[in-house]
Each structure stands twice: as C-alpha cells, then as structure tokens.
C-alpha cells in the first residue's frame, strides 16, 4: 500500500449541472497539518468544489483520494464518517436546541437506544473549554452570537474526529478580536495534525493562516502557489485573468451643500447619539466591525425601523420618516445588505424589479403603463451595464455582481438625493466590484450624496471622501480621506475593547 504524502487529493474533478459546467478538471492536493486557502471570484466553482469534497455533490468525472485510497462518497454522511467536516458561512444550527445537541446531532451518545445527556453535556463542555469559550454546553444555541456559534461548529467538527476541516468564509461575520481567536484555534488545530481548507475573499486571512493557496477561475483550476511567494497582484491576476490597474476609480468632485444630517440619533439596544452629515457629491463611508450598528442606523434613517430619539434633516429641514415609502418620497434610497432577500424579487424579471419602486409614478391613475416601464427599465439596466439578454431574464439567473447592478438600477429609478449603500460589493467578484465602484463615482459626479456602509478597509479607504467609524453602537471617530489609514480606522473601530488610555468619559 502506497503511503501518500497527501491526506487528500482530487484529480480531474468535473461537475456538470444542467446547462452549466461548474468544475472543469480541477486538481487539488492537501498535506496533513496544512492550512490551504481556496480563492477565486464568485462563480469560480469554490462552493461546488467544497460540496464535492464533503459528499453533497458527486463528481461526474475525476477521482478523490483520501489517505492514498480512492474514495467514493454517496452522501454527506460518508464524508463525515471519513473525517471530513465543513463549517459554513451561514451557520447551520438549531436555534431552539442546546449547544450540546448541536454538537452531537446525528451522532448522539446512545445506550440501548437511550440518549445519554449527562455524558454528552460533560464532553461538550470539555470541547468548549479547550476552545476557550465563554458559554456552557447547556445554553440555547439561538442565544449565542455568531462567533460563539462558529465555535460550536468547530467543537462539532472535533467531536466527529475530523481530520480535514473546511471553513467557508469563516471571518466574514466576526469582529477583529473574534477573528484573532479563530486564527489561534485554526493554528492549534493545524498543530494537532488536522488539515484545513478555507475559502475567503480576504487576503489578510490567507496571508495570516495559509501556507498554500489554490486558485479557481470560471470553473477551471489555475494553479497552486506558496503563500510566501505570491503577491496581491499575482493573486488578482490569477483570479480575474486580467490586470486591474485602477481598483478604486474615485473621481475628484467639488462637494455641494449639506443634504442629509442626523442629530442625536438613538435606537435602544442598537445605537446611541449618532451624529453625522452628508453633502452633495460626497461619498461618506460608514465603517466599523460587524455588530457596530451601521446597518441599523441606515435602516432607521430609511424608515424600516423606528428611532427612539433624534432628528433627521433633509437640506436643512427637519423630517419625520415612518416607513420606506416616505423615505423614498423625500429622496432617500437604500441598497440593502442582503440583495437576494431584501433587494430583489428573484422570481421576477429584471425589468419588473427595476420599476417596482416607481410603478405609481409611471402609471395613469393606477393603471399600469407597461410601455413606460420597459423604456425606463431598459435605460437603467443598460446604464449600469447589466450582463443580461432581455429585461425578462429572471433575477435569479444572474450572478451576484449582476444582481447587485440590478438593485442599483432599481435605486436609480426613483428621484433621489441620498443613496445609502449597505455593503455594496459583498459577495461580488472582483470584476463586478470594479464596475460598481465606477457607478458610484458616476453617481457622486451627478450630485448624489452617498453613504456607503462597508466592512472592507481597502474599499473604504479607496472610495470615500470622509469616513465615520462606529463601534458597539456609537460613533468613535471621523476621518478625512487623506488622514485615514487601515490602522487608525481599526483603532477607532475597537476603541472600547483595547486602548485603556482612551477611555470615553460619559
């Protein structure tokens, strides 16, 4: 029996779905105790690839070799039994059940058919202790934070004696501190001989953790590189297949007068004493760590939720916004964070999605005017360069980046002064990202005031005139374009948890 130096090998993996080739002869090699990053644009095939490894999909061509032996998984359970565990971005947890149950679901400790709760609770607590968790095994899963739930997922993988752990965008929803904790856990897993594959859009994750990185593009295998030898430019070129010289096309614009101002804005439990203003043509960044309250502030401005205190001023006049309809009438538009559930009606065609906010304006006394709708939709869809054939293409058939463009087009259909964009490039591939930045620049040139909520430092630094930093519901800093750096933004984003010399006196 040959002893392979690799714990996992995939050769020539091809996977075809009706009408689409998701993977085309992909290769992959993983050593024991190795942290291996998997990167590529959205739609490159990373998720499908992971699903083949975890047994969710069966490859149409190619072979998978585990510990030198060929394996053929019939389903996720086979992969689990073979020691492969996956931790996904959207935590797949049972909120009503306890931590113990979430860890042991599917492989409970049983004696003569009876579940042994005491033993399971004890073992679960052991795992939690080793992960330095600050909660107990009998706590209800739904009461935990995202980071804590992720820890439970790791405990679950450990309880199944996983030798290969796959993490899908593990730091996407974590604060800096929590990410640090996760890095440490991942490194100690590696030191114990576990191999780890992770997918991430964040270069920092890769540089910090991985020793090797494999890149996929358009379902093809591009190559595997040593992390220590690769640069950002090499990475991007491999992922995108072309040079992206001007990542952040921010135009120089003369700023106009103040359009929107919020004063002493509060919502119990979410944010307090938020003050800022935006001017015509300005791109204001609203940054901070996940959980800082940025989306909540925007949703409250837009009327999705009610404020408990504070005032909103539009062009100097105080306004009261109770719902999104009023907000839009006043000229405030919102690009939601979750484009699939909040931004689009996936079942509908692009055209109808775009015109939805303005069907009344286009109508004759409530009679739908299809002709006007189509004209408007066509103009806007082309303006944002949507990759689609007709206006009747279903929104669900578009890629993430194009869906985002449609949501932007939707925004443009209304008569707006202020546009709030919440994570406009989240989950969007590098190519479409650039397109969206161009659109933002154009909008700013046309005089819109733009508020951009973003968790991506480079994007914030690249596109914004001014940056507001929030931390745990409060504004902790305001930086101008020239003076902002990754370091001082981070410092303000973590103001409370770290620097004792800068204690805020109430």
């Amino acid at each position, binding site marked *: 029996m040959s002893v392979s130096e690799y714990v996992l090998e995939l050769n020539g993996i091809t996977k075809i779905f009706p009408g689409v080739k998701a993977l085309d002869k992909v290769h992959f090699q993983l050593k024991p105790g190795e942290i291996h990053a998997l990167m590529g644009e959205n739609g490159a095939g990373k998720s499908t690839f992971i699903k083949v490894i975890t047994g969710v999909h069966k490859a149409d061509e190619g072979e998978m070799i585990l510990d030198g032996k060929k394996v053929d998984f019939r389903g996720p359970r086979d992969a689990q039994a073979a020691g492969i565990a996956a931790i996904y971005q959207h935590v797949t947890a049972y909120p009503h059940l306890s931590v113990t149950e979430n860890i042991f679901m599917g492989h409970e400790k049983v004696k003569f058919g009876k579940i042994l709760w005491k033993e399971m609770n004890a073992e679960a607590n052991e795992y939690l202790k080793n992960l330095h968790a600050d909660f107990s095994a009998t706590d209800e899963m739904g009461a935990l934070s995202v980071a804590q739930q992720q820890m439970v997922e790791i405990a679950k993988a450990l309880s199944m004696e996983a030798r290969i752990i796959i993490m899908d965008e593990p730091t996407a929803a974590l604060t800096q501190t929590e990410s640090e904790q996760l890095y440490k856990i991942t490194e100690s897993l590696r030191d114990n001989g576990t191999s780890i594959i992770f997918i991430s859009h964040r270069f920092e994750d890769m540089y910090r953790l991985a020793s090797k990185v494999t890149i996929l593009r358009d379902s093809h295998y591009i190559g595997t590189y040593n992390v220590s030898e690769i640069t950002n430019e090499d990475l991007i070129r491999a992922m995108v297949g072309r040079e992206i010289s001007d990542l952040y096309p921010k135009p120089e614009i003369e700023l106009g007068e103040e359009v929107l101002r919020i004063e002493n804005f509060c919502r119990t439990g979410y944010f307090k004493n938020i003050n800022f203003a935006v001017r015509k043509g300005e791109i204001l960044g609203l940054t901070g760590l996940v959980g800082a309250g940025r989306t909540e502030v925007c949703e409250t401005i837009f009327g*999705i939720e009610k404020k408990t205190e504070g005032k909103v001023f539009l062009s100097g006049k105080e306004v009261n916004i109770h*719902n*999104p*309809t009023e*907000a*839009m009438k006043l000229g405030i538009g*919102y690009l*939601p964070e979750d484009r699939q*559930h*909040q*931004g*689009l*009606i*996936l*079942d*509908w065609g*692009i*055209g*109808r999605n775009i015109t*939805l*906010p303005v*069907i*009344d304006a286009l*109508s004759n006394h*409530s*009679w*739908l005017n299809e002709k006007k709708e*189509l*004209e408007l*939709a*066509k103009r806007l*869809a*082309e303006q944002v*360069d*949507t*990759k*689609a*054939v*007709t*206006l*009747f293409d279903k929104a669900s058939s578009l890629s993430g980046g194009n869906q985002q463009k449609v949501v932007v087009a*939707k925004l443009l259909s209304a008569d707006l002064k202020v546009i709030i964009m919440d994570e406009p490039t989240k989950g969007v591939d590098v*190519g479409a990202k*650039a*397109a969206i930045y161009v659109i933002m620049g154009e909008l700013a040139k046309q005089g819109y005031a733009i508020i951009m909520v973003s968790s991506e430092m480079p994007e914030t630094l690249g596109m914004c005139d001014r940056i507001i930093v929030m931390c745990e519901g409060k504004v902790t800093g305001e930086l101008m374009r020239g003076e902002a750096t990754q370091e001082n933004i981070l410092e303000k984003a973590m103001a409370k948890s770290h620097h004792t010399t800068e204690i805020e006196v109430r």
Partner: protein
Amino acid sequence: MAQTKRIIAAEKVFSWKKFFLQWEWFLILVFILVNVMNMIISRYYLSASGLLTATSSFLEKAFIALPMVFVLIIGDIDISVGSTVALSSVIMAESYNKLGIPMGVCIVICLLVGTLCGFINGFILTKFTELFPMIVTLGTMILYRGIAVMILEDQASKNFPDWFSNIFWGKIGSVPYMLIVFIVFAAVFGIVLHKTTFGRRMYAIGSNRTASKYAGIEVQKIRLLVYTLTGLFAAVTAIFLTSRMGSTRPNIGEGYELEAISMVVLGGVSTAGGKGRFVGAVIAIFIIGFLRYGLGLINTKSEAMLIIIGSLLIVAVMFPNLKLGSLIRRKTKSHK
C-alpha cells in the same frame, strides 16, 4: 472590461410552445370534460336554462373565491370565511326577526358584520406580524361560528319578507341577478389584479415580502385591506345563501373555506404566493361548480362529494409538484 455599452432587449419573445403549455389550457380541457360528462348525464344540460340552473347551484359560494385569490397571491390564507358567512347571516336574520329592523337595513348590517370579521383578522395579523395567518384564522373560525351558535343556539331563523328571496331567485329575462353581480365583480377583481399598480404590489408581496417592504410597498396596509375585503364578500355570500334558503342556522357555510381555497388553488394560484392568474381561478370555479352539479344530478351522496372535493383539492395542489404537472406549470408566467 467591456468598452461598448451592452444592449438589453425590451421585447418578449413569443413562443407557441410556451403559450400552449400554460395551466389555463389544461383547466379549459378539464372544464370541457366536466361539461361533456354533465351532457351525458342530462339531456337538458346544454341549454341556456340548463346551464343557468347549474350555475345557480353553486355561484353564491363563488363570491368568497374572488377575494381569496388576492389572499393566496399575497401569500396568506383565510380559513375563517365559512364562519364569517354563518355569523353575518345569523346576525342579519336575527336583526330582522328579533329586533324588527327593516330587512334592507339588515342586509347592510350583514355586510358590515362580514367586513368587521375580515377586518379583525387583518388587524390581528398586521398588528402582530409574528403570528401566522393559519392560526389566527383558525381561532377566528372557531370564534365567529361560536358567536353564531351563541345567538341562534340550535334553532333556525326564517320568515323573511317575500322580496328577500328575489335576491337569489330573481332574474332578468332568464339571467339570474346573482350571475350578473358575479360577472361584474369578477371582472373588477381580475382587472385590479392584472392591470393596476395595486395588483402588481400584491404579486410583489406574495413573492418576497421583505423586498417589497424595502421597495416602499406598504405591506401591512395591503394585507389589512385584503382580509377586510374577504370578510365583506363572505357577507355577500351570506346574503345570497340566506335568500336562497329562506332561512338560516348557525351551521351554514360549513366547508366553504375548503371549497373557496380549492377553487383558487385549482385555478393555478399557488399557496406560496406570488403566482397564478385570475382567469384560471374563474375557470376553476366553474369546473368545481359544474362538477358538483353533475354529481348531484346522479344523486351522489353528500358524503361522497366530500371525498371528491377533498381529493380534488389535494390533487390540484400536488399536480404541479409531480413531473408532468411541473412541466406544464413551469411554462406559466409567474404573473400576467
């Protein structure tokens, strides 16, 4: 990156295949079959009077199906309509018989009671959005009929003025008033659903409630309106039904929610919301109505009818999920 602007087509490509693989053609086929069956059963069926008699046998129930289309399109459900029919009818009857209120006013009272019942449903659901329509309308289903029982106990209420029975039995020439009223309402509902901004908003709510909210649609207001409308039309049914029977009891209208939902669902409207066309519901109303009539002609026991309608409902909903059905269904445009 692309340097030339991409052109997006704004014309819809017409395909004969897509056109004919629509659910409504299937319904027309079934409709023809039902009529053929009825023709075989009775020679008098395929005459003007025969068809009109057949129509009158079920049409009063159909009034509930009209707003029920809206309810299902916005992704909700209402199983309290049968009870609303009973309550509004009972209150109307007792207002006349026990309180001596003139019958005309009693009819208005009936409509008000129905509207109120629907409004209560809508109010609870829109103020407590955490609640599911199924459980709330289950509760009101029990409550409304319970109140009807409290009022009439196990008695009947009859002795209405002679002209009252004209509402159901009256005709212009040989066309019943009821049919004319139905056609008018059906036309209005259909136009509202497919040609107005209100209808488009309902489809949006049914497809994705959250996205509708973010697009500025007043979701809760529309839901409240739809539920209130449902209650109103349950009262309309109550009026026609009571006029037909000449009397009322607390147990009338039992099973009407099943029939109304069956008619709408068979018509191609999905219980998930956002899908279906009005014309399909109308055809389905007549399919079920004529089917019942035909079965009645051959003296099918009411118990057997229960089985048939129950099975019809299940098959109608299941069919799109099975292979053949989904082939036909997939070609149905999601709206219009």
